């Protein structure tokens, strides 16, 4: 009989990376459903396209790196990257934007840094930022209108495919419109808040369906928290920081976007629960997570309010990705039996 000698522990809990990633994917389903419900099939097609691209480019790079392809594809991280990008991109974005963003995310932002676990930046957001900067027109105008806004029927699946793959101009113009955040930001200097909120964009309960999309992502996020896959620190601190900034600077609704829109429009909840919480590029210590989340909230508010872009999840997250290692170094917990926690590097330390 052969005996195995391995280091303890000899037993293992039921957590598995691949399963965690699947759960994350599962938790986005309410949001995906809400997006499709209000804005048509665009997001769904984007998601499928992005996932396919992500898996394909991941497989290609793994092959090139002479890594076992199936083993690493099974960890489902490429799937989640593609999924999140698909959810974040404008529903009627041309196909090549999705493909470009996703392949860049997987190849450059993830694999070139060493693959899973080694990327300093959130790959999905790197891909998003790339296309946002490179193709601002497509990225700001191709937001599908919610059926509540257009007041007509939802864009059909054939039209959606046409828009995405052929870029049919008339169709695109017919079905797209500015996002609520964009509209509020640009028109508040001309109109009062009350006037603005009478516009079609803000029809429905709050802003033409975006509130439901955000609530759906919130629900998915809470599910992840219950499943103990994410901790409360980052979403809570991020949303609190955003709300606080909004209350302090933007209390005047005739000048700045109100709190309700900040929280329930754009990609706020998707960002708070699914993007900012990406463990690889986020801060890892409990207090560090609070700082990290708060930083994202603050940057989000600053860029949304005074920056050039109506939404800013990608930039806020990437900016805090830069700071994460530094935050970690200064927020280490106090180890059992020590009087004080360690802070950063000491003078004698080798860097």
């Amino acid at each position: 009989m052969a005996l195995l000698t391995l280091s303890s522990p000899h037993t293992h809990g039921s957590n598995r990376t691949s399963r965690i990633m699947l759960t994350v994917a599962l938790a986005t389903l309410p949001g995906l459903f809400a997006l499709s419900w209000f804005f048509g099939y665009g997001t769904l097609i984007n998601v499928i396209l992005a996932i396919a691209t992500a898996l394909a480019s991941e497989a290609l790079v793994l092959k090139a790196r002479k890594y076992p392809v199936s083993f690493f594809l099974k960890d489902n991280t490429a799937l989640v990257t593609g999924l999140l990008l698909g959810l974040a991109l404008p529903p009627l974005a041309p196909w090549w934007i999705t493909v470009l963003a996703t392949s860049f995310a997987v190849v450059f932002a993830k694999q070139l840094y060493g693959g899973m676990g080694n990327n300093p930046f959130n790959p999905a957001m790197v891909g998003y930022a790339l296309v946002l900067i490179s193709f601002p027109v497509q990225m700001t105008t191709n937001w599908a209108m919610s059926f509540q806004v257009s007041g007509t029927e939802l864009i059909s699946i054939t039209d959606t495919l046409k828009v995405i793959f052929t870029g049919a101009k008339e169709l695109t113009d017919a079905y797209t419109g500015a996002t609520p955040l964009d509209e509020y930001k640009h028109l508040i200097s001309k109109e009062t808040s009350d006037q603005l909120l009478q516009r079609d964009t803000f029809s429905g309960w709050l802003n033409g369906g975006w509130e439901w999309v955000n609530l759906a992502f919130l629900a998915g996020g809470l599910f992840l928290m219950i499943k103990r896959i994410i901790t409360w620190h980052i979403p809570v601190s991020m949303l609190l920081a955003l709300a606080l900034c909004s209350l302090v600077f933007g209390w005047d609704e005739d000048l700045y976007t109100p709190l309700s829109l900040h929280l329930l429009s754009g990609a706020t909840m998707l960002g708070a629960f699914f993007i900012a919480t990406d463990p690889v590029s986020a801060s890892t210590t409990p207090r560090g997570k609070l700082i990290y989340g708060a930083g994202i909230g603050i940057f989000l508010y600053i860029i949304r309010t005074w920056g050039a872009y109506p939404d800013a999840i990608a930039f806020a997250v990437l900016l805090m990705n830069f700071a994460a290692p530094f935050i970690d170094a200064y927020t280490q917990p106090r180890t059992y039996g020590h009087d004080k926690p360690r802070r950063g590097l000491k003078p004698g330390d080798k860097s």
Partner: protein
Amino acid sequence: MTHLIQLHEFDGGIHPPENKLQSTGRGIKKPPMPNELVLPIHQHIGAPADPVVAVGDTVLKGQTIAQPHGYVSAPLHAPTSGTVIAIEDRVVPHASGLTELSIVIKPDRQDSWIEHQSLCAELGLDDCDDIPADALIARIRDCGIAGMGGAGFPTAVKLNTGKYTIDTLILNGAECEPYITADDMLMRERAVGIIRGAQILLQILKAERCLIGVEDNKPEAIAALEAALLELHEEHHIDVVTIPTKYPSGGEKQLIQILTGKEVPSGGIPAQVGIVCQNVGTALAIAEAVDEGKPLISRITTVTGDTIVDKGNWDVLLGTPVSHLLKASGYQAPGKRKIFSNKKPTRIIMGGPMMGFALPTTELPVVKTTNCILAPTNKELPANDIAMACIRCGMCADACPADLLPQQLYWFSKAEELDKAEQHNLFDCIECGACSYVCPSEIPLVQYYRHSKGAIREERATYQKAEQARERFEARIARQEREQAEKDAKRKARAEAAAKAQEAKKSAAPTNSAADKASISTSTVQAATNSADLEKLQKQLTGAQAALVKTKEKLEAAQNDPDQADKVALFEGALAKTQDKIKKIAIDMAAAKKAAKTSTTEAGVSDKGDPNSPERLKKKWDTAHARLETASKRLTEAQEQGLDTVELLTQGLEKQKARVEEAKAAYEAVSSSTKNSSVAEVSTDDLNKENANDELNRKIRAQQDRVAKANERLEMAKAEGLDTVDALTKAHTKQLEKLAGLEAQLTPAGEA
């Protein structure tokens, strides 16, 4: 429970499936006596014990078979009576699978005890509460008790708390590891003994209270302990505290935190916060040692896992082979039951699934720390899958009971950045395995930490050794320098002494060495005397000059210092006197020099016709030497050509050498006097030359010795017909050449 204990919580921790019920179904049983007992001499933390029995000895049950080596060590006792059949290296139950010296006993199945009695009886005390703590600790040490919870630290050492006052004794009955029920069953069946052990420990430590921490998944054990408390009327001093079940609450540090809220300082011991923590099994062993005189020769071990039919606890003699225990428990190797399952090797784990180690073989003995033998099937405890990359999910940090950042430690360990790992408190890791348990990527984190810890320890040891080597090297260099300095000083002293002796000889040689100063001026006095006197004068001159300088200094000081103004005149007087003296000496010297010159010229003149004049002698020596050279040259030629004149020539050479010696001796005798006269001419300078000459002469003598030796060897070689003749001849020639060179040097030196 009579006191209300405020419980605290430790951070992190996990709740793995307990799997304890399987092995609590039946009471503790004794396995049959095995055919041999293997007792490694190193079953505890500290130095291995020294065997005190020999192969072939018969031993009685409880007899000491190995004595502790040093303070942190523990003795070993025979678990049964029998014969020592071997003292040899055997594989020990350790993760390394290495061998260590073990005493092997073949039981005689009589199981006859050595004489033993309670400590109370041994000391002849009426009241057993009067036993001094020292005697109790000594008894615990003699009985070889070492921590039975798993670490195996010698209990007696732990109880010597030294300067720390202990207020709380904690008995650890938490037993948080899955599967293990040894302490549980012990508490159920032998609660009175445990409480008795607690009493003894309280007596030793003079602690105010004792807390027995038991996880709430052991209600029977808690009830048994409560009953025992009432029975021994200890309900006021000892509390059984029920703590929530969470792994690793049975870790010493964690249990202390739960029960008292105190943290043991990093790198410190619980005594620093006034606490001593002992396992319940250890407490029982202490009670048996003190009350019955029973050394630690057996322990309770759980044998469990799905491959075991009779899962349960055994009262096992130390040294019982694991295979024997497995057989007694009805172990069924998984391969025998299913056709395909023997492809994958299984594990047999000593200890629990979280912190135990997988055994390399089952031919290993049960030791003092063996609380469990776990033989699971692969389905029950599958081995970890291939590790995936860390995704920094932070679950490990949430599970860590020491509040470390396991993933950071993992990154550092993986990259071998050991200093950073150390800075992130790697050594506060208790290797509980909670991080590995929760890791979704199934990374063997604990193995990384163990590796890093080992590497750091090795690095430290290497550094320390290097440091030590450097110190020793530097000490050696310093010593060599000191020795060299001493040697130099000695040589100098010897040289000086020799020079002095020579001078003394020289000055003593002339009959009228006592010639007074007046006679110096007379030209007829011998040169030797002259030179000696001259030297004396020179010395006087130097002394006087030194005095002059000193006086001048003093004078200056006096002039500058108003306090010494009255002394100025005095110093001036002294100065004048010294100056006078110097003048006088100078005059004397001049006279002496003149005299010396005349005497030298006279000597030079009188040299003619004198056969013993240095020049002649020198010439003679030179000639002799030249002959020697020719002789040796011829010898060489003869040797080279293999002529039979070699012997003759060698003899001639010897003769020549003797002549050279003679000539040289004669020359030296004369030249010394010559030199002295030359000394008179230029005073001190020449002393050096003389020294040089002496040196040369010495060298020459040494060289001549060498030549002689070379010759001797040469002859011997020739006599024996060795083929080294050529080489020796060459060496001989070389030596001769050297001699000639030296002599050539001497000539100019001697003439100068």
